């Protein structure tokens, strides 16, 4: 061609529906920032995560140090001064534990369980969905029937049965959550990949005799990941809720590592006698955490999903 290269340009914006562009990171962040509620939620989330991360430095007491607990400080109202001097800003529980410290540490456990369970479930589900959609045939049937089976039962019921078989423990709660949650990712991933695999760049790759594993991991996976990431943010919140529920019901984390759910449970019996703070403040922390994760997740979905722009 004698012609010199054309100047690089982006496509003109027309009224025709825009071609689905990959939203870039900067634009997503800009969109997140542009909404006050989402911004507030994002700030709350950052504060909560930082608080959990730096709990050992922030907490006035070490709630795990049984020796430091004084039974005489039990069930003190918020703002009461302890016998040793420091003020219990959020009161104490029936063991005399400082609620503020317990909440900070509880937040840690809840977040660890929520994030690691989600990461594991998303990874397993994504790969299973990818495999089912790309390979098809018997593999697809097997995976998707298993998915249907798992999603056919109430989540909490499956988790309860699993945990009553395995017993309490942070690792066991995570395992239970992964088992009930991977199926959702698999279903979403399969749908996305089925659409993506029809695109011509996948045909082109096949026409270059690119091996199947490479088409799946290099071509399909990165292009089908956006919905998974959005769902995962919301699923972190539901994993935290599930863990709290299980712990509240007494089959979740052990008493030695109290999560927010277990803290709520521990104050439950005193709720009606007016000592609201033992359940209320951990509950409030849980609500704020879950709510802000969901708001950020919703906003994320809006910025990724072109139909909702």
């Amino acid at each position, binding site marked *: *061609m004698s*012609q010199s*290269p*054309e100047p*690089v*340009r*982006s*496509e003109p914006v027309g009224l025709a529906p825009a*071609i689905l*562009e*990959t939203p870039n990171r900067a634009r997503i962040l800009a969109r997140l920032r542009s909404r006050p509620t989402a911004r507030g939620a994002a700030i709350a989330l950052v504060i909560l995560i930082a608080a959990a991360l730096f709990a050992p430095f922030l907490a006035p007491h070490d709630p795990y140090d049984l020796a430091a607990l004084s039974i005489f400080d039990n069930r003190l109202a918020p703002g009461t001064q302890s016998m040793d001097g420091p003020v219990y800003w959020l009161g104490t529980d029936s063991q005399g534990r400082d609620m503020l410290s317990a909440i900070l540490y509880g937040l840690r456990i809840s977040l660890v369980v929520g994030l690691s369970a989600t990461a594991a479930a998303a990874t397993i589900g994504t790969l299973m969905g990818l495999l089912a959609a790309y390979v098809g045939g018997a593999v697809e049937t097997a995976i998707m029937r298993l998915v249907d089976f798992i999603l056919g039962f109430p989540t909490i019921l499956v988790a309860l049965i699993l945990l009553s078989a395995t017993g309490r423990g942070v690792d066991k709660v995570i395992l239970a959550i992964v088992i009930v949650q991977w199926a959702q990712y698999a279903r979403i991933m399969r749908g996305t990949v089925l659409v993506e695999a029809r*695109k*011509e*760049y996948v*045909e*082109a*790759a*096949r*026409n*270059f*005799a*690119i*091996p199947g594993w*490479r088409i799946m991991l*290099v*071509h399909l996976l*990165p*292009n089908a990941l956006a919905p998974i990431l959005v769902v995962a943010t919301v699923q972190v919140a539901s994993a935290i809720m599930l863990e709290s529920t299980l712990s509240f019901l007494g089959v979740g984390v052990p008493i030695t590592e109290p999560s927010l759910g277990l803290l709520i449970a521990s104050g439950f019996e005193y709720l009606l006698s007016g000592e609201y703070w033992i359940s209320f403040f951990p509950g409030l922390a849980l609500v704020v955490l879950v709510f802000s994760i969901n708001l950020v997740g919703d906003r994320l979905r809006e910025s990724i999903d072109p139909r909702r722009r």
Partner: protein
Amino acid sequence: MTLDTTHREAPNLDAPILEAPNREAPILEAPILEARGLVKRFSRKPDIAMRLLALAGRPIDRRTVHAVEDVDLAVAPGEVVGLVGESGCGKSTLGRALAGLHPPTDGDVLYRGKPVRELTRAERLAYTLEVQLVFQDPYASLNPRRTVRQTVGEALAVHGLAPRGEIADRVEAALAEVGLDASYASRYPHEFSGGQRQRIGIARALAVDPRFLVCDEPVAALDVSVQAQVVNLFMDLREKRGLTYLFISHDLGLVRHICDRVAIMYLGRIVEEGPAQALFSDPQHPYTAALVAEIPDVRRRKRRFTPIAGEIPSPLAPPPGCAFHPRCPHAMPVCRETRPALAPVAVGRRAACHLHTAPGASPAAIATTVGVPS
């Protein structure tokens, strides 16, 4: 634009066009790629839900899309063959089957005279790489998350076709060949216009040194002024590289311009085939005549003809007999019952129409397929 020399040397009207008459045929004239009795059908496998409904008495939907039905088509080296038809005629499926993307339901694809299903592993890879596709949609045909360098160089790297250190050079050479600057290699597809993306797609095909390009509506999605650029690129590449093309398009004006030989498809079958100029100036099938009348012509003012009537039937349920008979102004009783065979009608030309063979019918009627100017 000479072609079809096989035929000129052996003007045997009964021999399939361009198929080497025997093993002794000169190697140059043997087809590089050939479809023989090719059939491709798509049918839905009944899933569990459908089987359950079947138990409850609902019949299983076993409808089959007859995408390609019994197609014979041979392409000689260096030839540009146009494959023309409207939506649902199976032209894209035929192109993909020839490129090896769709295994045939029946019949064979022959590459350099050998059925593809009998190729060894190494031969199969050579065939796959030597027959490349250029796609219609410049957006969907490039992976949005891969740079131009990754896209164009992928096959070279995966199959070890070039030493690691040379891949970047090979990519740049391929980009230069399609008129793109080497500095574009590190960019992503969304930074390019439609025409530029189509060039990237062509560069990706050229990188593996193909012999044959199956171009599936390669300019249909481009702006008019950019279409000419890409068409010229194809013509330049043909000259420089001696490429052979199967050019799939619904744009008859374009096909007439660049193709040596043209096959017209209707509902999965080739209804007419022959040298481009002869086929367009003197159609031997009423459907071809109807298409030729619709070639846009900027010299023609104010339409004054009655177009062919009717809709394209669904490939799920093609009409019996000649698939074109419900729309054909010349349809005779025989057309409703017997499917006409694709048979030679003149030197180098085949058509599937009863007007050529039925007693009392005259192929001269074909010229009057579209309404006379009023």
